[in-house]
């Protein structure tokens, strides 16, 4: 596989994800919770965007709606030019497996399969040609630095290795959009850094578009852009621009601490 040159990225600049006025309401009558109250967000191809916010701010609901696991009550979601809200059943499953990749906090590897088989299974599900599968698995494992673990079962691997295997599984199908829900949540800082480095590499070299929900300012600091959610609405957006990671981290931390009371459970 050829590595796309950085200048190509500049050229594509198309919208990979466009969320417009997204609404999701739980409950009926008087006891209504507006988990998402008119969220609009747009990701360009090759962008790496973080979503932060306190518990109950709607982060996970947003991710669930984008990942087609949950259905919004209003608004539209367009991924790679395809409107999602009209899709159902089989189409939805097809879209999900062909265009989306998932990384979860609990890495969700199948415990009965080796790491290599876990990655291969994602390719089996998208019906990739069988003779290509081992090669693609090896390549992705190399990119994520888990080539030694391919024949190990999840319980024989460290948490970081498991999470990188899960990332490999999410990326191996070349999805249009990778959705990550607290990917570093269960990792120690060293493993977290390793995983984030790899995600950045995938983002930079492969042009993968990533939307990541996180609590952790350090994790968020590797994104190009961080969006803050509160009470189902976006109230702030930070761009990394030309800042290095450390400076961006400081900037995020400042927002978080200024919001102190409201975001006390961020740290």
């Amino acid at each position, binding site marked *: 596989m050829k590595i796309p040159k950085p200048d190509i990225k500049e050229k594509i600049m198309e919208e990979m994800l466009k969320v417009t006025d997204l609404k999701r309401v739980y409950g009926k009558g008087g006891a209504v919770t507006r988990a998402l109250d008119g969220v609009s967000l747009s990701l360009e191809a090759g962008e790496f965007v973080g979503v932060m916010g306190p518990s109950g701010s709607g982060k996970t609901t947003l991710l669930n709606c984008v990942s087609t*696991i949950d259905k919004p009550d209003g608004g539209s979601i367009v991924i790679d030019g395809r409107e999602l809200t009209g899709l159902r059943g*089989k189409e939805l*499953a*097809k879209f*999900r*497996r*062909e265009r*989306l990749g*998932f990384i979860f906090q609990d890495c*969700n590897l*199948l*415990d*009965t*399969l080796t790491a290599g*088989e876990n990655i*291969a*299974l*994602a*390719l*089996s*599900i*998208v019906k*990739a040609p*069988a*003779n290509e*599968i*081992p090669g693609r698995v090896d390549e992705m494992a190399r990119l994520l630095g888990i080539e030694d673990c391919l024949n190990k*079962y999840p*319980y024989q691997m460290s948490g970081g290795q498991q999470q990188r295997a899960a990332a490999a*599984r999410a990326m191996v199908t070349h999805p249009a959009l990778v959705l990550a829900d607290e990917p570093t949540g269960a990792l120690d800082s060293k493993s977290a850094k390793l995983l984030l480095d790899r995600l950045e590499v995938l983002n930079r070299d492969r042009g993968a578009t990533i939307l990541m929900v996180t609590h952790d300012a350090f994790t968020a600091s590797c994104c190009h852009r961080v969006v803050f959610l509160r009470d189902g609405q976006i109230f702030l957006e930070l761009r990394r621009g030309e800042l290095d990671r450390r400076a961006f981290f400081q900037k995020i931390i400042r927002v978080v601490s200024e919001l102190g009371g409201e975001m006390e459970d961020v740290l």
Partner: protein
Amino acid sequence: MFSKLAVRNVRRSFRDYGVYLLTLTFGVCLFYTFNSIEGQGAMAYLAQKENSMVEPILMLIDIFSVFVAVVLACLILYANRFLLRRRKRELGTYLLLGLSQGQVSRLLFLETGVIGLASLILGLGLGVLASYGMSALTLSMFSMDVSGLLGLRFSLKAAGKTVLYFGLIFLLVMAFSGLQVSRAKLIDLMQGDRKNEELKQRPLGWAVVQFVLGVLCLVGAYAILLFFGMAVAVAVLPICVPMLALGTLGTLLIFKSLSGFVLKLAQSRPGFYYKNLNLFTLRQWISKVHTTYLSQTVICILLLLAIGITASSIGLNSTLESMTNSQAPFDISVQNQSADWSGPVDFDALLDEEHFDKALLAWKSDVTYYYNDPAVTGIEDASAAIRLSDYDDLMARLGKPAYAGELPRLLEGPDDVPATGGLGLVCVVVPDGMAQGLEVRRQVWSADYAGDKEETEEALIQILRPLQQEVSLHVSSRLSIYQDVMGSKILALFLGLYLGFTFLLAAAAVLALQQLSQAADNTGRYAILRRLGAEEKMTARSATQQVALAFLLPLGLALIHSLVGMKAANDLISAVGRVDSVQSSLVTVLMLVVVYGGYFLATALACRRMAK
């Protein structure tokens, strides 16, 4: 309030209770059916004829029922334990909400009561139908006039017995559940999600070696059985023990290694391995192997017993039938054993005198047997002599050619003089003329009926009875011999089917419960697959394949075992008589399809639902 909650719980968790209810219902049905045989179908016929086997059959069914009840009790307890484990969290919540352990026990008590009542009603209803089917089966097997013997009947006695036994079993279950709840700790109940068993990785090459070893063991066991034959292989301990040991070991090794062996094969064929969810299905199978290979072996043996017992009890039937034919060549034979001093009886005249309608007889013959006098016949070893014309008459009736060799001739083996009930004489055939120089020894009057056999025989016996005061008569009829044999046949058939069904039920129910609890553990894995974008159809198919592997593998191996066993058994039985293997195979297959297939379907459907 509790009863309402109990009923609602049962209705709500019907999915979990489905297999439980099925097992209970089948159990009740089985129990009722075999305990209601008194006064139905062939048993009613035997009782009418005052057959001596009726009492022993009923007694043996009673004894076997205790055994069956014990097996069913174990099965039901096992099923109940499975249900309780699935509901740990719910029970924990009740306790957390402040219900006392006594109250929770009472709740479970009521639930068991509801389920028990439902299964008793369903099972007894099914049982009435099943006992009708069984009457029809037994009557058709004995090719008898069925008028009046066949009909839907409800046996109050059998129902009472069923209710008593199952009531006891339910009480046991209630006590057991209560004990479980009172011993359980709240923390265990709340964190009741079972941990995954640790996966032990073994090199796949080892599985291949084990598989080959297993096959060799089985080939060895089969070779011993076929080489020595059934009679020797089962009866002679030094041969029997190694055969059984090899067979069991081979089965065990195959179940232990088959999944690894298949996985190894599949991995070398990426086109298959990476297709659909095959990789996942195979891994699921192999991950359960080291906890299930023992139970799979036991289930395979149970199935083998079920198939073997059923098929051979039905096969034995046909053999007994052919034995009847060789013992009773004519419908009736009347032997005048005092002919040597009281003289022959003129049966023709006697029948006329009593106004017996001769048209009722299709054929009759009156044969005189003489004392063998070596001085006349020149043959030492015979005890009686028969004239050539008489002998040819009898042979003609049986469709055999007339004798055309040298005379006098000693009769041996299959050429022996035919008579129903047997003569007990060694005969020599002599030319008609030579017989005039011999003394009369015995007179045998034989006949075949033309009309209704039972009425004709009744009339004949009425006429012969007074005669027995004067001469020593020995009357044997095909009907009476047939009824004697039928008693043993029915005994074999009933006990065989009873045990066969019990083993089959046990095997199927254990498999079903195992699969269901595994499927429950698998829901998390299916959720991951769905998130990866696997369609419902794919996960459901994988779930079905897993159930199919668990159900079909023990069945497949048991079928291979029983084919070899039946081959050996047939060699043994066919030495005695004819075997109607088609009929026995059909009944066995039908039974397998209904019980095993029913469980398979119920389990596969439930597991599919859990995978969606």
